């Protein structure tokens, strides 16, 4: 009984977590009519199986031509926001971890305060400001808030990683003839790579999953990201949301995230610094 406890617990948690995922995948393969009619069964069967129709429709149908565009928007905006955020955070975190300067505490407290600030309360002012600046409904209009809200977390994560790297590494590099910048780029950043990729994944998640900014700061498909665009799916009958099409779109929108995580995860190897120093 004792031996069975753990596997059963794991199984329960797995089912609990994965059932909705399985459900949405299965839903995306069912025909619209069968869902509208109700009770289509858990798995797509003879009468209800729509094959790849829903996916085709979402990606090619004129009615949903905003969706492929939304995918491009989401990928572009999230990647740019992630890249910029990680670059800025790396430099900032290095300064915080290594340098003594006035206002260091202020920077840290400020960044923490930003992270805690409720996003929703900023939407109104941002909406007004962005329209005045002319960046409302543009990529830039979304990249800026994504960056500013992910930076604090990225800075805190990275400065923790930088503190772990022994000072001697850098001093050795300097004695070996490196400038401060070379020491940073060739020794410190490679060693902090797990931290950099952790920060990148977190930032990318935030940008990819965001709905509030996406829906409020865009008005057309020129910058609308996937989560916001899902709200614009309407079928032939306005009172019946095309559930199977939404499911297909949702599945499509998770694919890039899975790819990114798989790519980055390999870089997040623990114990990369082992062997640097004795111990």
């Amino acid at each position: 009984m004792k031996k069975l406890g753990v596997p059963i617990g794991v199984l329960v948690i797995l089912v609990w977590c994965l059932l909705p995922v399985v459900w949405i995948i299965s839903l995306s393969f069912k025909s619209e009519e069968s869902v509208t009619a109700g009770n289509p069964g858990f798995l797509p069967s003879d009468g209800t199986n729509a094959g790849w129709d829903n996916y085709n429709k979402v990606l090619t149908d004129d009615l949903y031509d905003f969706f492929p565009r939304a995918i491009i928007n989401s990928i572009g905006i999230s990647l740019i926001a992630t890249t910029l955020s990680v670059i800025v955070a790396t430099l900032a975190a290095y300064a915080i971890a290594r340098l003594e300067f006035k206002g260091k505490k202020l920077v840290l407290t400020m960044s923490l305060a930003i992270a805690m600030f409720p996003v929703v309360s900023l939407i109104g002012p941002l909406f007004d400001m962005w329209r005045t600046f002319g960046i409302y409904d543009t990529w830039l209009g979304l990249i800026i808030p994504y960056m500013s809200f992910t930076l604090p977390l990225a800075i805190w994560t990275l400065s923790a990683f930088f503190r772990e790297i022994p000072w001697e590494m850098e001093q050795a590099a300097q004695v070996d003839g490196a400038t401060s910048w070379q020491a940073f780029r060739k020794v410190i950043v490679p060693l902090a790579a797990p931290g950099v990729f952790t920060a990148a994944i977190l930032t990318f998640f935030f940008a990819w999953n965001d709905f509030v900014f996406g829906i409020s700061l865009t008005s057309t498909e020129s910058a609308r990201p996937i989560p916001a665009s899902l709200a614009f799916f309407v079928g032939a009958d306005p009172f019946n949301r095309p559930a199977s099409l939404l499911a297909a779109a949702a599945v499509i929108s998770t694919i890039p995230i899975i790819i990114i995580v798989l790519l980055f995860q390999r870089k997040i190897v623990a114990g990369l610094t082992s062997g640097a120093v004795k111990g």
Partner: protein
Amino acid sequence: MAAITMQNIVKKYGDGFPAVNDVSIDVADGEFMILVGPSGCGKSTLLRMIVGLEDITSGDMVIGERKVNDLAPRDRNLAMVFQNYALYPHLTVYENIAFPLRLAGASQAEVDQKVREASKTLELDEHLERKPGNLSGGQRQRVAMGRAIVRDADAFLFDEPLSNLDAKLRGQMRTEIARLQKRLGITTVYVTHDQTEAMTLGDRVAVLKRGILQQLATPRELYENPLNLFVAGFIGSPPMNFLPAKVSGNTVELPFGNVTIPADKASAAQGKDLLIAGIRPEHFEDASVLDASAKTSGSTFRATVDVVEWLGNEAYAYVPYEAHTDVEAQLNQLEKELEGESLRTQLVVSLDGASRIKEGDEAEIWVNSAKIHLFDPESGENLTADRSAAGTIPPDMDAAAPAEAEGEADAGDATDLTK
């Protein structure tokens, strides 16, 4: 290659504490210089000032012909081996060794040739493609040395490079470093707290205490002519015995009896009341194993041996004695400076392996009285040192810390310039 000249180097930290205080050392071109002292004596700080990782508060640091006080580490062309090696864990052994060359913009052919050469010297050939994390301590140590020798640096700096190795490996690497330095003939500054390393490796040894240079001399000079109590107690293992002594004429009154010392030594100690006598353990012997002619050159006394440690080739015998209270305070202070514990006052005597003295025996012990040093208990100064064979005597050692009441080391005949 270049000589390194330190002139009146001072390092003060933010709180005004002088970690290195007015130290002047000349390291000749190709010389192997050791900086030694207990922890916190400023030896590592001094090394880091040479390489440029610490700012110099005042004084001049000259390498070759250049004053390098304000140069960045990378502009000083020195190679350093860190205590914890500081290898780059994301690079292979090959790339670790090649790192300085790549920074200097060397061609691939040159990099390859030099790295292969270094790896051959250090027997790292089969490890070139491995990462430092997979290497043993000794191999990591060799990679760190490889990174240093691959460059044409003006000098090598070692910061306690062997302290992380086990005893056997330490011995091997010590010989290896000595061999390498002799072959390359490169100026070397080596920091250690291990006196075996200090004695065996160095052409000259600088002994530091609390940021102040105590004595700068060859290992032999340090051992035979320590200028003060601190150096005498620091150099030598087991350490020198310190006993309360009174001199009258040519006779020295020691706790276990009177011995006669040479006239020149006695004259140097005239007019002082209580002194501290320093006798190295090997200057004692079991009188029964000596032949008659040897015995005449010294004195003998009888003492009860407390503990005997027989090592085969020799034996250490411990003889407890009652110390004079005035001297005891001074000796306790010295013990603290040497990072030891103040234990019972006892005499450590090194005996010949053939000696049959057992624990609890009352034995007749011979002492080579010509080798006795006499120290002034107030200043710690060695009154009987042969100053012509004591290396460079640092000036005004007492001036640096005049407020210290417990009797700072004093070089004696130094001319005090600052007062």
